[in-house]
């Protein structure tokens, strides 16, 4: 059985005070769950459903609708490369291809040591500083292959 830590429970309680319904806190609660458990597994979804008095089916439909919830484990560093037009115009596809080769994984995969996972994402609103990617929550912009190499080297 999984359970939120006392601290997360407190955060959730505080969060619930902002909304007139418990269901409205679903996205914030899923974020808390992802922060705490790393992956939004079926078990996590059922736990969240219980916390908010909503059905597991509803939580499942929501968790699979949004792209940012990790339904499967991701690497310690989750690389999300923008592939939409402005980045693509500036060579975003090359960045993605390079990362695939360099890490030896395809989109949606995790390196065997669990350090990196890679995926392509749609527009990150970083079009003026293209090409861009996110590693975990952080933006990396104006990328080129050399810069990507440097970033990877710095991630320990």
């Amino acid at each position, binding site marked *: 059985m999984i359970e939120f830590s006392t601290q997360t429970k407190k955060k959730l309680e505080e969060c619930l005070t902002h909304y007139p319904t418990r269901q409205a806190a679903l996205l914030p609660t899923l974020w808390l769950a992802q922060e705490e458990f790393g992956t939004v597994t079926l078990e996590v979804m059922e736990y969240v459903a219980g916390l908010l008095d909503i059905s597991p*089916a509803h939580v*499942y439909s929501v968790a699979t609708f949004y792209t940012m919830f990790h339904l499967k484990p991701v690497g310690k560093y989750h690389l999300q490369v923008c592939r939409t037009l402005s980045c693509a115009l500036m060579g975003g596809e090359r960045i993605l291809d390079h990362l695939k080769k360099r890490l030896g994984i395809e989109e949606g995969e995790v390196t065997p040591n669990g350090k990196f996972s890679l995926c392509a994402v749609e527009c990150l609103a970083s079009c003026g500083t293209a090409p861009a990617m996110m590693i975990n929550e952080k933006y990396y912009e104006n990328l080129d292959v050399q810069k990507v190499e440097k970033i990877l080297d710095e991630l320990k």
Partner: protein
Amino acid sequence: MPKIKLTIDGKPVEVEAGTTLLQAAETVGIQIPHYCYHPGLKLAGNCRMCLVEAEKMPKPLASCVAPVQEGMVVKTNTDNVISLRRSVMEFLLINHPLDCPTCDQAGECRLQDYYMQYDKIPSRFHEEKVHKDKMIDLGAGVMLDQERCIACTRCIRVCQEVAGVDELCLSNRGDHVTITTFPGKELSNPYAGNTVDVCPVGALTSKEFRFKKRVWFLESTSSVCPGCSRGCNITVQHQESKVYRLLPRLNSEVNSYWMCDEGRYGFDSVNDHRVLRARINEEGVSEEAGHEDALVELASLLRETSLSEIAVVGHASETCETLENLQQFAKNSLKSRYFFYSRFDPPHPYSDNILMTADKNANQKGVDQLGFKPLSDLKSAVGVLVLRDLTGQEMELLDRLQIPVLAFFAVNESPLCTKAKIVLPIPSYAEQEGHFINVQGKKQKIVPAFEPRGESRLVTEWLNDLKDLLESAGQKKKIAC
């Protein structure tokens, strides 16, 4: 409510404010094709099949959600509207597996129907279809083919709005949207069968019914579910004296568009374990008999006793007419005043605030109105004539009081079939006409779907012949004296 005037396809229409265009059109006999709209469910507006044109409106309107407006001029059959429907059909079919020959929905599939009506062009889709899971046993007797689904969400809404549970959902998004339960959980609400009814395509099919019969072979008869005192209005679908499925039939005062699964799948008693020939039980030996022999035997048994001390035992699941006949027979032919009844009393009857009642008898109000008394009130009798069945407790009571079961009017096999001296087969509710009075006091008619099966005869017929036999025997006796 204020009235709104508009014209639809040139016809003047006057409806209450808040009425949708689709409903308004129906009032003047104009049917607008649709998938997601269901009159018993909340509006979704997603299938876009019901698009119509209105003058001064720049875009087509989804008639299932668009409210009427004063002076509106609506057109549902222009070339443009027809081409809109054709394009929605095309979109719906591009990722559909087009597996009609092996799909059990064939014959009652709106994709087929509307394709023939509006589309009828070969596919222009040359890409790889989106693949999803097939043959998923969702639980509760419902099978899911995700590839056939058109994402109309009727099944989700029927669970939410009728059964009051949120068991189904659409996961993912775009053309990957998929109907599913929470992974690992089964559909488990007692109204799950309605999801199959409302599914306009072959995505949800009934495990019980699928592949048993192509629907175009089936005949339909209006009836009332005998499963509990609600008396949900149903359609019995049958062929060659066999029931294949029961479907709910609209009655806004009783069951709306719905029925429970217990009632829906409770037609075994019509098809199976039937008593179809009369039987005579003598000293532990049971022999089948023709109906005349059985009746003659019964008449002679009756004559050996004091007729007026014979009790008749009706049943809370029999029609008012059958019960009346039994009562008249007791009064007039037996001169008996003992009218009792038995009832189905399962130990833990499921009930809810939706449709299902705890009383699993269709006509408790009927036996009450006719003045039948519960069999447990019986103190003494020289013998009983029993209709339909007795509970174990009631049989013990008869044993204790040493009252023999002289005749058993049987639909289905029962321990009474060996206990009774004479067993006379009678038809199920699907083979007779009559009325049940439901829990609300509404008297509702059942209609025979087919002739009484085997050698079963209506209770009236048995009793009329028995009456004749008893009377003629009485005369003979007189003459003999």
